[in-house]
């Protein structure tokens, strides 16, 4: 695999010398995210795969970026463990590197943490074709700048990930879904955000306009106790959460453009046109709407949040625009890692 690593580094070095932009590709399950990269050469990293280190007792996994998530999830499951951020699109072939670079996380994110919260370290090729090693594989580590957590959600624009180290979670003893009827948005938000004060077993909370679904993860006794506190019908409903995570629920096929609106969970309802599905206790709102993009974005921004468009129209920018000062510091950071601007240029923003 040292050969593969050298091959990738050489490809980036050559691109750096020739100032030729690269389009870094994993399995392509998230190609709908972000802007189209202009004239580029493809750099396929899926061949750089395999588990490098996994000692279940440490709850730490080190794996190469091209490793399919399915392979990782199966291995972890066999040892009673899991990836705490529930990355989507595993069944479609998504790779570990792509999952980190896109930084998407499933329903558990609001309760267990984002992709970045589970990262312990990374090895990547920077825009000069140099192999950089940051972080490590232990829980606490403050040596050197944290350049590994910012890899999450950077869409491959800061470095070509070679391998990452992740903290894992033990699989819960049991998991159940509670269906709790509620039609009022404000009441639903209040409940989803107050229940976690009474129990640590909640691992997902979403509201579809008719009912709140709460996923309970923990000991059988703990789940029973939490269910009696919250009230509602106890179901085995693992598929629902998978379909929500993979954007496969009927809601996602509705008319209208798909937006992801993120806010502090207990924000005033933002007054958007269209149908909404609230996940992460209300912190992540899926919106189906044909309202003007600028209006949606300004509604979200007014509440301290943002809106991303998951459209199939290349003309629509996915990511929420950055204000001038923030954009400037993002540009300087990008230039420190990729001075020639050859790594997925423009995938996030035209300027990055």
């Amino acid at each position: 695999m040292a050969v593969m690593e050298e091959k990738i580094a050489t490809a980036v070095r050559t691109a750096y010398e020739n100032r030729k932009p690269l389009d870094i590709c994993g399995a392509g399950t998230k190609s709908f995210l972000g802007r189209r990269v202009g004239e580029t050469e493809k750099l396929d990293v899926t061949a750089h795969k395999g588990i490098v280190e996994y000692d279940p007792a440490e709850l730490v996994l080190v794996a190469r970026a091209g490793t399919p998530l399915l392979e990782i999830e199966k291995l972890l499951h066999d040892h009673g463990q899991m990836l705490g951020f529930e990355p989507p699109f595993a069944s479609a072939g998504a790779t570990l590197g792509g999952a980190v670079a896109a930084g998407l996380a499933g329903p558990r994110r609001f309760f267990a943490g984002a992709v970045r919260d589970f990262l312990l370290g990374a090895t990547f090729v920077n825009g000069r074709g140099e192999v950089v090693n940051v972080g490590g594989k232990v829980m606490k580590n403050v040596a050197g700048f944290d350049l590994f957590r910012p890899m999450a959600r950077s869409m491959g624009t800061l470095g070509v990930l070679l391998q990452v180290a992740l903290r894992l979670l033990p699989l819960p003893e049991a998991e159940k879904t509670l269906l709790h009827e509620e039609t009022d948005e404000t009441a639903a938000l209040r409940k989803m955000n107050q229940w976690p004060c009474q129990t640590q077993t909640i691992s997902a909370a979403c509201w579809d306009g008719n009912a709140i679904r709460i996923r309970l993860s923990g000991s059988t006794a703990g789940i029973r106790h939490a269910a009696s506190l919250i009230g509602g019908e106890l179901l085995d409903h693992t598929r629902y959460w998978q379909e929500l995570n993979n954007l496969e629920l009927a809601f996602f096929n509705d008319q209208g453009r798909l937006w992801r609106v993120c806010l502090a969970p207990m924000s005033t309802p933002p007054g958007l046109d269209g149908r909404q599905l609230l996940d992460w206790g209300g912190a992540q709102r899926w919106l189906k709407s044909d309202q003007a993009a600028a209006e949606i974005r300004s509604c979200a921004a007014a509440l301290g949040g943002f809106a991303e468009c998951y459209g199939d129209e290349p003309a629509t920018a996915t990511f929420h625009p950055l204000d001038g000062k923030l954009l400037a510091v993002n540009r300087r950071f990008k230039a420190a890692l990729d001075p020639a601007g050859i790594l997925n240029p423009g995938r996030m923003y035209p300027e990055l």
Partner: protein
Amino acid sequence: MSRDTVNKDPLLARLQAALPANCIVADPVSMKPYECDGLSGYRQMPRVVVLPETVEQVQAIMKICQLSGTPIVPRGAGTSLSGGAMPHKDGVVLSLARLNRILDIDADNRTARVQSGVRNLQITDAVQDLGLYYAPDPSSQIACTIGGNVAENAGGVHCLKYGLTVHNILQLTMVDLDGELITLGGTAPDMPGYDLLALLMGSEGMLGIVVEVIVRLLPKPQVAKVLMASFDDIEKAGNAVANVIAAGVTPGGFEMMDNAAIGAVEAFVKAGYPTDAAAVLLCELDGMEDDVVAQIGKVEKLLSDSGATSIHLARDEQARARFWSGRKNAFPAMGRISPDYYCMDGTIPRKELGRVLTSIYQMSKKYGLGVANVFHAGDGNLHPLIAYDANQHDEFVRAEAFGAEILDLCVAVGGTITGEHGVGVEKIERMCVQFDDASLAQFRSVREAFDPDGLLNPDKAVPTLARCAEFNRMHVHHGELPHPELERF
């Protein structure tokens, strides 16, 4: 520098024009408390100390320093254990201690917006009536500031379950070298742009001056119970820690003390630890009552199967407080039995705990210095306390060499030279052991992106390549230094 030359200093004149007189400390006697932080072996008098009371004053100071090319060393409460707040001889010490207001508490979203000079424990004190608390709890939490916690990505006992500073800060506002305010992160998840919030965590004041943060608050767990387990063998105790975590239990805190630490603590506070034990583990389980009860049974069995010679459950709050009092007083207890101690901070994979502790005892014999271990076992974060006498120069030199050898071993077993104390001036050479040239060069270019002139906390945390080349010539891996009698900075 005499008072006369200070008074003629054009920098001082500019600062005096921009700040009220009570915000400037320039006479050597008053500046004395600022000459070092918690790592008192490293001292340096600054040119001037400023204590701004408003964010606007911080902005003005930054502009003055940038224009005059003056180094800036930010400082919170000065509790750093790695010399991160040690002054620069030509520079300004920028104390954030007076930015100490809690600005807003949002009970619904469980967040608090506070200025960077607010003390860690002050946040929990302000929100506990709401049933909330701020989770990261470094042992200096009575004194240390949240801004300092950001600079070091501080941890503590509870970060095993509830995360480090990086996991508990949602937003920060910093002043850059141009004196401009920049806000990173936000109360919504996954804010747009790069995760520069994470980059700032543990950046040791080299990327900007943090003036305000929004912290995440957690609901207080319903119940917390603590188990104390004794072992007659240090390796068995280390393996017990690994076994409990491997079984899928995440304790709220999981601490270990070795025989030397137990002896020091018992002589000081009488926490009820068995003084003949090779090691004691404290394992706290928190959450809902039903869950905690079930977990206690599971953990008791795991500890017993791992060879614990005795296991005690604190039956009530009073007993729980007594068990913890020993751990919490371990540092002052060491202070009573040794004139000075040098607190190290490395992290290793849990499975290496037993082996590394055994090696540390062998090193203790080799260097002729006592050592006590009291640390966050659950996340493999070691804190060997090396006993020495600062009045004996030779002992200080040996203590440093002993500490360095421990850190080299941490790296060799797959760990790191610092878990939560930072690199500062103390461990800057150890960076050359942990990182290769390409990675160090990358750190430097990131630093330059924020601070092209190298004014923010210079000569700390990230070594130059020249310094590493020099160090690597001197450094014999896992062995003696060529000239241990020489002081090397």
